């Protein structure tokens, strides 16, 4: 029967053009406060993006928390006080890394991004990079170049809320398309430069810029071909780009700030939720790499080990129960393990024929989370285990 799946926000990603073989026409920078005149193709693009933005703004996936939005906005405005007035920020809840700016000033930051950047400086670089695409009007250039090609795929369908293959399927399709329609190397170089300049001018530590690319690539290699990264497909990283960025970073003599404290304060409440979304991707190897990176960056060990346990529990291969138990126990021995660790441990103990331990864990869960929505069920587990 009808499969009517497609997450709406996926649509906005399809702002793309084919890999251009013709050099981009020279195009002036967008000026702050500028809106294209009606009748231009750029205006049409904006209108389409305005419509998408309107549906984006009331979509179920937008994170509306004022504090988090204010924080990301602050970083954006620190990068460019002039342009930040024109931008409207939408934080989209999805575990994939992505940030984008549409030509009309809609900025999207996916929670998978906020999960992966390790501090404010790295966030600033990613935002600055996207602002580069916006200021330099790269999307308009791509639209213009694709428009004249008679054999180009229809790309401007904001309507991906259509028959699709389900979220996972869509992502793979989109990644495939995104790689066909990637930003050109020139555009990417430009944005790297602009992002770097904005970041450094705003006082951030230059050395942080290349780190996020390195981390993403590492994750991608571990994740393998079945888990394409949307962002990397449309922003193809190359050795050359990384080398350039690293060279610029080393050449930069100022110190610059990392912004660890402000960053952690802003995202701390959400990290458990975002990691839960991440684990649901069932990208065992990729998530493992991410967890390792987060631990290095100073995430609470309790949380890291809990989610390691979750990876094993959800995979459920032979021997995984044991590995899960070991990870959960490690979590409880460290700081920051969420209350669910006890519940998960209880389930694993029960399944490995350790009823006494299971009961103990379930009781600990109820003590740690007396208002848990599933407390009636957990109480019945304890009864059953007597």
């Amino acid at each position, binding site marked *: 029967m009808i499969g009517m799946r497609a997450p709406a926000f996926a649509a906005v990603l399809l702002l793309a053009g084919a890999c251009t073989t013709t050099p981009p026409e020279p195009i002036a920078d967008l000026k702050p406060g500028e809106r294209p005149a009606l009748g231009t193709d750029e205006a049409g693009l904006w209108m389409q993006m305005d419509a998408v933005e309107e549906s984006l703004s009331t979509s179920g996936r937008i994170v509306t928390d004022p504090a988090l939005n204010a924080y990301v906005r602050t970083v954006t405005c620190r990068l460019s006080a002039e342009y930040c007035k024109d931008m409207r920020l939408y934080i989209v809840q999805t575990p994939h890394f992505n940030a984008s700016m549409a030509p009309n000033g809609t900025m999207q930051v996916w929670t998978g991004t906020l999960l992966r950047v390790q501090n404010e400086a790295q966030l600033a670089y990613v935002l600055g990079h996207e602002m580069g695409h916006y200021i330099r009007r790269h999307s308009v250039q791509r639209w213009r170049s694709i428009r004249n090609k008679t*054999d180009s795929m229809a790309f401007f*369908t904001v309507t991906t809320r259509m028959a699709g293959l389900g979220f996972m399927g869509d992502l793979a399709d989109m990644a495939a398309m995104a790689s066909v329609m990637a930003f050109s190397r020139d555009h990417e170089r430009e944005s790297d430069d602009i992002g770097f300049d904005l970041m450094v001018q705003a006082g951030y530590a230059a050395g942080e810029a290349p780190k996020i690319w390195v981390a993403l690539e590492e994750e991608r290699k571990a994740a393998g071909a079945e888990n394409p990264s949307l962002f990397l497909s449309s922003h193809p990283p190359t050795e050359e780009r990384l080398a350039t960025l690293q060279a610029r970073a080393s050449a930069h003599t100022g110190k610059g700030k990392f912004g660890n404290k402000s960053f952690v304060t802003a995202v701390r409440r959400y990290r458990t939720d975002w990691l839960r979304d991440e684990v649901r991707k069932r990208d065992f190897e990729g998530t493992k790499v991410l967890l390792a990176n987060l631990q290095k960056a100073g995430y609470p060990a309790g949380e890291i080990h809990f989610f390691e346990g979750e990876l094993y529990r959800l995979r459920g291969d032979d021997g995984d129960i044991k590995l899960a138990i070991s990870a959960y126990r490690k979590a409880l021995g460290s700081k920051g393990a969420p209350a669910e660790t006890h519940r998960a441990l209880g389930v694993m103990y029960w399944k490995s024929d350790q009823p006494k331990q299971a009961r103990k864990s379930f009781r600990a869960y109820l003590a740690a989370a007396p208002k848990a929505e599933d407390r009636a069920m957990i109480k019945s587990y304890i009864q059953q285990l007597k």
Partner: protein
Amino acid sequence: MSIGTPPRASRHRSSFHGLAILIAALALAGCTTTLTESHTGGTGTNESIKLDAANSRVVLMPIDIRVTELTAAGLEEPKADWTEAARNNVTAALNTTMAEHGLTLRQYKKPKGAKRVRRDDQLEKLHSTVGGTILVHHYSQMNRLPTKQGQMDWTLGRTARQLGNDQNAEFALFVFMRDSYATSGRKAAMVASTIVGSILGTRVAKAGERIGFASLVDLRNGNVVWFNVLYSDTGDIRQTEPAREVVDDLISGFPI
């Protein structure tokens, strides 16, 4: 039906290719394959409703309209100026045509307060879903729901009353339209007939087309009391006169 998938309840401000396909497919329900003339998809009516032009207060909800250009390659290029022109023409035509029947439409005003804005937003989204449901289950004979017994019996529920109170209206008129026009390159491509046969062949072959619906909701109880579907491939609503004709078609049978 696939489990665990949200309905394609596109909020009426979003693009509606899906609905376009739906409507085109419905027009094909009965398993014929071509549509060449302009026609309205028929009117579903609750017989008893009839508006009193002098006294009925009807609020016109913000119309959901988009006009695109169909290029040779089959790209739908959004056109901001065409859409503005069409929006203005259609809104003006609605107001004028209704006025000729003695009815002055009230224009929707965004309410004060986040709660109310959210409520209206949920009502508009619900209406989109109800509209799509009416198309699938009422207009398509094959998909009729027996419990409805042939009646167009759908509602937005009692929360609609709050919208009515805020807008000071007993009825709300919703209009939705998606419109596209072909470039000359496109027309040439059609003549060359290079399109590989597919279900969409009949649709893609068009020089341009329009899909729309209008619905009247009784805000006192939320009931959809009148609904009309329009599918056509002639007329240019970027121009004032043709827009009036299209609106005439769209609201033919309006209970006044």
